[in-house]
């Protein structure tokens, strides 16, 4: 079962990662990434640039309107994601709980829709 783990950032995570003790947090992430790679659970991962660089695009009546900043106006923003393929939802939650952002902001665990299905 594949899940995308959405990594949320807020001002506190910035402080934590770039302030004192940041190296330790990075170390935690590296260790977890290594574990997921070796177990064959990691499908992919990317970090996203600061929302400063985000453009939101809307098309209304065929006319595109482009604004600076993320779509959702919130203190929190999407900082990156992991895609994992693991045995149970519990395991996906466990991975999310170990990602440092879970302590400072939040992680969102979302199942990926499958192209396959069984007849009802």
């Amino acid at each position: 079962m594949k899940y995308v783990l959405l990594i949320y950032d807020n001002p506190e995570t910035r402080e934590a990662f770039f302030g004192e003790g940041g190296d330790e947090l990075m170390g935690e992430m590296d260790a977890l990434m290594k574990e997921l790679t070796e177990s064959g659970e990691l499908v992919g991962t990317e970090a996203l640039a600061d929302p400063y660089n985000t453009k939101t695009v809307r098309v209304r009546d065929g006319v595109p309107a482009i604004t600076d900043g993320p779509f959702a106006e919130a203190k929190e923003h999407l900082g990156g994601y992991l895609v994992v393929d693991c045995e149970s939802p519990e395991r996906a939650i466990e991975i999310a709980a170990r990602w440092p952002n879970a302590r400072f902001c939040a992680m969102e665990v979302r199942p990926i829709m499958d192209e396959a299905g069984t007849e009802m």
Partner: protein
Amino acid sequence: MKKNVRVEGLLREMVPRVLGALVRRHGRFDECEDAVQEALVAAAIQWPDQGVPENPWGWLITVASRRLTDRARSEVARRRREKAAPLPEEVSLASGPDEEPAQKEDDMLTLLFMCCHPALSAASQVALTLRAVGGLRTAEIARAFLVPEATMAQRISRAKQSIKTSGIPFRMPPEEERADQLRAVLHVLYLIFNEGYTATSGPDLERAELTGEAIRLARTLHRSLPEDGEVTGLLALMLLTDARRPARTRPDGALVPLTEQDRNLWDRKSIREGAELVADALSRAPIGSYQLQAAIAAVHDEAARAEDTDWPQILTLYGILERISDNPMVTLNRAVALAMVRGPRTGLDLLETLDGRLTGHHRLDAVRAHLLELDGDHTAARSGYQTAARRTTSLPERRYLEAQAASLAEPWRGPDASVEDHRGARRERRKT
């Protein structure tokens, strides 16, 4: 490179025999497995061009042995560079005599037990079985499971590492562990089958080929253990389920429920074979869950029309299955059979007992909605289908459930419109 189907088939047949012979001779499962994969690649390139060698088994053994030797030599050289280690004895890996025929099937069996060892995770068991016993390449397995090749390669190497560190020997498990381990093997084959069976058309075609692979492996296992009722039962279940494949999806990938499938599209040959296998198993082996599931599939498959289905018999079979397996999904299916025999209310009452055990599972909502629909409570059925549609993580299932909900929307009642007309129109719509 053009894929040569005949060569591919031959190579896959050969893999467990070649690997088995190598491991028996040299030990070191992980290294032998790599060497066999390399030999396979060489064969896949050479054979279609230069023809299949007279003794393909011997050819593969020789090439794989040579790889093992090369590897051992470079390992020795590396160690000597690092520290002046004394030269070990000559690595002798020449190919032996032709295989002993009786050994072939035993090797396959031993390999299956090894790949499905409980020390490995389910994902690793599946990946390693497909590679070491099925002869598939890592890239092919990765494509079938829709993950990057690197991810699949990791699962395989982790599995091989676990075998090495747990010291799992290359031999049949001791008698007292055999039954449990055989159950694990059957479960892995069942997982492979299901992964392929649930795949629909289009981009999932490679994934769908897993059913064929699972059936092939189950057949080989059945040849090794013809007396085992559950092995026979699993093979029968696969054949009887796969027989319906041409009818279970529309060309656009939309799911067709069993009752609405065009039974002319079902594969009669597979149905006959599956039904014979399960009848044979049930008549002489101790009863087991795969045999019962196969028997249920056979009852469905042998009904000429959906309305001819022998529901009382299906209900009985689910009753027995429920007693031996204690799986809430079995109870869920029994509720459907119960509804067909004694009316939807009885089925709905049985579903009540599942709240708690299956709460939040889309299948419980979907079955409840279906029974409510049969009972005539369209408002509740519609909201049940909608809940199920939100809960499923499968695109075609969501599409099907949304369509069910939409078809139960308040119909426009013109002067002559009756409920019957509405249902007829719905059936027509589904066909298009």
